[in-house]
């Protein structure tokens, strides 16, 4: 595991992705210090200002202002905070539920496996966006509600992919040997099976983060996301949509932010998959 991690830290994909994620994460963590303005402050004398480099631009608002005269740069920076929080907690939550169920299902097999397998089947037969919409309607808006909705929709992804990996690992004789040496089921799963599924788990988390960012943007776009008082990229796109001819930058900038974040997480996931997956690493890709 240690050697696999150091190997992955030498992969250019992983390094580039980690650099991008660090920048976005830094903005999210220190949004209050970096942002030139409060994201909610309005300047009604300067609405729909273009970015500083365009005609009529002004360095007070480096990326211009939106239709309510709020600083786009500040809103982007605070939007990163929303996106990163959702990405982090939603993927961790989905990971925890999915991983536990996958290990129980793959390790014990039989009726438990059948039950969990059918639950995942039924769950996955709902279109994910519709399911999260229904959940948001029921739960109400807010950051924690968005996280909960993503967790409840996406745990199945972890469960299904990990279960097959658990099945393969469980078939190894060393798992049976651990049982014979007196390990309890819990000990066997945690000490013998989980370390073997960990590489796949880490890869899945980084891919899930990209998905969570997109889902949060969609929910915010239709106004069922984090709520009107919290800046979010999806919301900015929704606001800018009506003024797209007067001020295209307002629309393009948040889209670009989403694109960057999702690319970074996907790149990280791909890089980790190539370096952590023993089978791929051995065949020399």
């Amino acid at each position: 595991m240690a050697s696999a991690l150091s190997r992955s830290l030498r992969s250019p994909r992983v390094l580039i992705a980690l650099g991008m994620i660090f920048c976005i994460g830094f903005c999210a963590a220190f949004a209050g210090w970096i942002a030139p303005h409060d994201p909610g402050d309005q300047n009604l004398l300067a609405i729909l200002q273009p970015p500083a480099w365009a005609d009529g631009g002004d360095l007070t608002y480096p990326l211009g202002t939106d239709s309510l005269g709020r600083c786009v740069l500040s809103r982007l920076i605070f939007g990163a905070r929303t996106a990163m929080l959702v990405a982090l907690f939603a993927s961790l939550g989905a990971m925890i539920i999915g991983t536990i169920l996958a290990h129980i299902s793959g390790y014990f097999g039989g009726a438990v496996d059948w039950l969990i397998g059918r639950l995942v089947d039924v769950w996955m037969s709902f279109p994910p966006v519709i399911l999260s919409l229904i959940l948001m309607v029921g739960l109400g808006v807010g950051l924690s509600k968005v996280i909960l909705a993503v967790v409840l929709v996406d745990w199945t992804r972890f469960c299904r992919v990990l279960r097959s990996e658990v099945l393969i690992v469980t078939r190894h004789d060393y798992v049976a040997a651990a049982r014979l040496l007196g390990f309890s089921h819990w000990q066997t799963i945690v000490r013998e099976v989980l370390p073997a599924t960990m590489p796949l788990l880490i890869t899945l988390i980084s891919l899930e983060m990209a998905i969570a960012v997109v889902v949060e943007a969609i929910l915010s776009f239709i106004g069922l996301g984090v709520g009107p008082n919290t800046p979010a990229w999806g919301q900015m796109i929704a606001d800018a949509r009506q003024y797209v001819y007067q001020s295209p930058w307002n629309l393009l900038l948040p889209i670009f932010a989403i694109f960057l974040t999702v690319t970074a997480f996907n790149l990280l996931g791909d890089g980790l998959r190539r370096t952590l997956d023993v089978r791929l690493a051995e065949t020399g890709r």
Partner: protein
Amino acid sequence: MTMLALQAKDLVVGARIDGEMVPAIRALSFDLEPGKILGLVGESGAGKSMVGRAIAQLLPAGFAITSGSLLFEGEDLVRMAPGARRALLGRAIAFIPQAPMTSLNPVRTIGAQFDEHLARLGERSRGARRDRAVAMLAAARLPRAAELLTQYPHQLSGGMCQRVLIAMAFSSNPRLVIADEPTTALDVTMHPPILALIADMQRQHGTAVIFITHDLRLAAQLCDQVTVMYAGRAVESGPARAVLSTPAHPYTRCLQLANPSLRAERRALYVMPDQMPSLRQLKNLSGCHFAPRCPLAAEECRRGEPPDTAVAAHHHVACIRAAATRTIAAVAGDSVAAKASERPLLQVEGLQKHYDVGGALFAGARNVAAVKQATFSIAANEFVALVGESGSGKSTIAKMLVGLEQPSAGKILLDGEDLTEPSRRRRARNAASLQMVFQDPQSALNPRRRVASIVTQAMEAGSRHASWDERLARTGELLAEVGLSTDFAARLPGQLSGGQRQRINIARALCTLPKILVADEIVSGLDVSIQAQLLNLLARLRAELGFAMLFISHDLSVVRHLCSRVLVMYGGEIVEAGAVEKVFADPQHAHTRALLSSVPPDEPEAAWPPLQGSAN
């Protein structure tokens, strides 16, 4: 003089290791006359399979023929145009593969595959192709050949698949056949008939055969000429019987002494230290490559590679001390414990296991008995063998004994206490008194744990929390017991060889000092010299630690060497049981007789009935 079927002249196959070419086969030369069988004998890593691959020009990535020639009927296969070589392969030169089940396409019928092969050979008429296929399959002694054409490979047994492949190989009337361990993947009872079939077909078609094997005794029975290979070099070559009755190279002699005998007096096995050097190690090795393991090695052996010298007509050896080879001898002594105690430690009564097979949502499940009935007992310090072919229920019994499977019926009594009642207490007790050594050390060792953590894994089970110092101390003891140095404690399983992994596997099972070990085919995948090391280790550990063992195996000579009592399983039932000497001397059940006759005799002059019978 007739033209040779195949002649290798100073063939060198190089492997690229860390950017450097290391010879995997060094200056190999042999002559194969038409209609003769040449045996290439050696342990894994000797380079014997590389010869077959060099002929087919199917060398693995990184390997290449660097010099020398392979003359097939006077034409050099190495320098031949690829098109001309392709025209020979599969026609004049045919192959019999090692794994018959995976060599046939699982989604096409035998008939379709045979037909395709014959069409490639140039037979135009569909009817003629069909007739020829049926005739060839019948010649391969397959019953109902016509019916077989409509069947798929998974409907046939491994032995039948191999017969189909042999029929296909000989259907082109090849002048050279390369058989690479054609019986290794099959059950032992299938070995004699398949070998007899190859010998028969070879005689009928007058084909020259290169027979690649690890079994010296088998090579002596089947082959005319034998070449023994070690670390890429042909160390000894000559007439098969001469090489076996008067081996001139110390390696051949050691190999012979390391193999337990089925019929001769029981003796301690000769143990060569260490293992064959890997290609990476070969890079830095000078002098005779066998010298580090050779009992005769002298200073001069390490200075330069020994030249090929003749010890008799056509009998060559690459050793400067060949004259002393005869003096190598194993220590006399019996490895079977003198007398086990009378009191049974483990009693198994009427053990049964049924599985429900199939059983989809609406289809009824079929009930299949893996173990129909098993009753036996093991005394303290006694080694009992459980033999039988695959699918006879041996492994199922092992799993039920250690508690990995629940029996459908019957009792398992350890010291009078029933083990079939599942309970938490029972499992903890089990862990201390009954342990299992698994067949495949690759799969049985967690690749992420270091050796110290693996062998003392029992000390972290349950609520026990042994300190790391305690565990390291125990690791030292266990490694010493299985004959490994303490340097191994920090290694990962991936850094160990097969034999070392199996030692770790044994050490782990011994950690709690169990009363009974269940060993499932623990030496079957290993080379003869490594197998001898492990068998001697087990005999020594029994004397030191005094455990009993259920030793599951299909190799009767190994069983005879190690165990005092034997249970023969066939179709889920124990069909014969008794003292090893008695059962082997006077087998009652047909299956026991079949198992016994599958082992070739030790003396090359002795007749081996399976091959004799086919001569008529």
